[in-house]
């Protein structure tokens, strides 16, 4: 496969994770400007695990996701009383603190004659697990895409279970959720932790594909992009964030003539799109319609109705 295409597909995979994490929080009605913190934590933590401790990426994945879930859950608990814009700004402040902490952190050890470890704004390099294990770019892409497929699959299952509906209910009407017996606090903290873990997965793959990451990779631009992906692609299905990422990275990286003017074109496109589709391309209503069209073609009609005078 073409090298350029491989790198685009790997990027799409990596950024879809963080877009999914922002989408999960959007479902519960929260706008997070801070998912890049967990993406960054994922990149750094996993990089340390493989480059400094010499463990494999497969060991790094669960460790990193746990660490990210834990820190995200903690942020979720601290910010639990904040709603709306206050929550958004608090997550932004947290993420910037994380980024600045990375800029301020130097912790290097000598391994095989080389200094390895976070080095302030020079970032963390030598994340060579893929190279050392002879995993080529092509293979790494498949690792990312298959993991993405699994995570997306879990998302679809979640959305079909009551858990998905519970998240959506909290997002649509918090008070209703409470009177429905939903422990909103607990579910919100759970969603925040889960979103942190998913974002960190993107960071892990990003770090191991790039081999070198910098604190500036995890600035607020990344966070707002991840939020925008879900909203552009649509908030009705987990395919929405993927579609958003594909539109941004895939489409615009692939089309040569927009090079250099990419954000001028994309920014305008998104602004116009949002005028006509304020909840994205695949919003709840369109997803519902698609689902209905699909179902009536494929399965039996809805259960036969019995006569009920009340329905008249």
């Amino acid at each position: 496969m073409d090298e350029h295409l491989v790198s685009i597909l790997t990027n799409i995979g990596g950024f879809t994770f963080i877009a999914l994490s922002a989408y999960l929080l959007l479902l519960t009605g929260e706008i997070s400007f801070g998912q890049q913190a967990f993406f960054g934590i994922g990149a750094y933590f996993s990089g340390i695990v493989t480059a400094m401790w010499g463990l494999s990426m497969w060991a790094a994945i669960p460790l990193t996701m746990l660490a990210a879930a834990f820190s995200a859950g903690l942020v979720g608990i601290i910010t639990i009383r904040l709603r709306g814009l206050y929550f958004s700004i608090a997550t932004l402040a947290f993420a910037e603190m994380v980024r600045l902490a990375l800029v301020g952190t130097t912790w290097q050890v000598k391994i095989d004659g080389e200094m390895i470890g976070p080095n302030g704004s020079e970032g963390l390099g030598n994340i060579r697990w893929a190279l050392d294990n002879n995993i080529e770019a092509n293979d790494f892409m498949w690792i990312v895409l298959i993991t993405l497929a699994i995570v997306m699959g879990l998302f679809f299952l979640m959305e079909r279970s009551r858990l998905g509906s519970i998240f959506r209910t909290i997002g649509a009407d918090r008070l209703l959720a409470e009177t429905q017996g939903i422990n909103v606090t607990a579910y919100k903290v759970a969603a925040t932790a889960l979103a942190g873990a998913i974002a960190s997965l993107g960071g892990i793959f990003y770090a191991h594909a790039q081999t070198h990451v910098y604190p500036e990779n995890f600035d607020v631009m990344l966070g707002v992009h991840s939020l925008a992906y879900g909203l552009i692609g649509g908030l009705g299905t987990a395919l929405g964030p993927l579609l958003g990422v594909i539109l941004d990275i895939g489409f615009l990286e692939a089309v040569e003539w927009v090079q250099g003017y990419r954000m001028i074109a994309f920014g305008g496109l998104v602004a116009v799109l949002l005028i006509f589709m304020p909840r994205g391309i695949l919003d709840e209503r369109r997803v519902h319609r698609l689902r209905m069209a699909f179902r009536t073609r494929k399965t039996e009609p809805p259960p036969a109705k019995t006569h009920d005078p009340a329905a008249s």
Partner: protein
Amino acid sequence: MTLLQVDGLTRRFGALEALADVSIAVNEGEVFGLIGPNGSGKTTFFNVVTGIYPPSLGRISLGGLDIGGMPPHRVSKHGLARTFQNLRLVPQMNVFDNIWLAQHQRPGMSLLDILAIGGRRERSRRHEVDTLLEKCGLADMRQSLASDLPLPDQRRLEIARAMARNPRLLLLDEPAGGMTPLETQDVARMIREVAAPGRTLIVIEHKMDLISDICDRAAVLHFGAKIAEGTPAEVLSDPQVLDVYLGKQADHA
């Protein structure tokens, strides 16, 4: 036997006393009406009982258990469900899912059940939703988005959703609000035949014929205080009540 016992319930908002020393006892299996002019404290009463606002003073006990000041999700675990005067459905979910979701609160639902998307128990629960939809006359609209339903159906959906949790005590806030007389009769029948059997109900309503039709007993609130209690006929002929409605009606919004 008394199911809901409210003693000396007071709720203040700043200087305003939205509920003033209200005591009400609702018996098991009863349909109890709550009436009063706009803003007399009826909805505040529901909000305090369901835990949305903590009481300023007074006790609320459900089946002997003190629920005053509990957060809404815990109150609801003890078998209490309600509907809302200005409709709170999840607009972007379909009718079936709105009800199906509500089952999560039933006793014996574990985290595994909440994650379930198949299996025998889940199938039977889904079947229950369909049965309920049919009983409530909503089977035709099973797949429609809740926001696409006309108002009377939305009200019925709210009642059906509350019943999906099998509550001991069901609070209905203006179940016939904004409905035509014909639609009101329909909803009265639904309450009588589907919601009331084996359950205790408290109903807020302005439409007196509905109250007379379905309620065993009723109480009247005025300025946050209870001014009368008895059978609907007694209450509606009470001189003080007549005075409130026909004479110096005044409110406390």
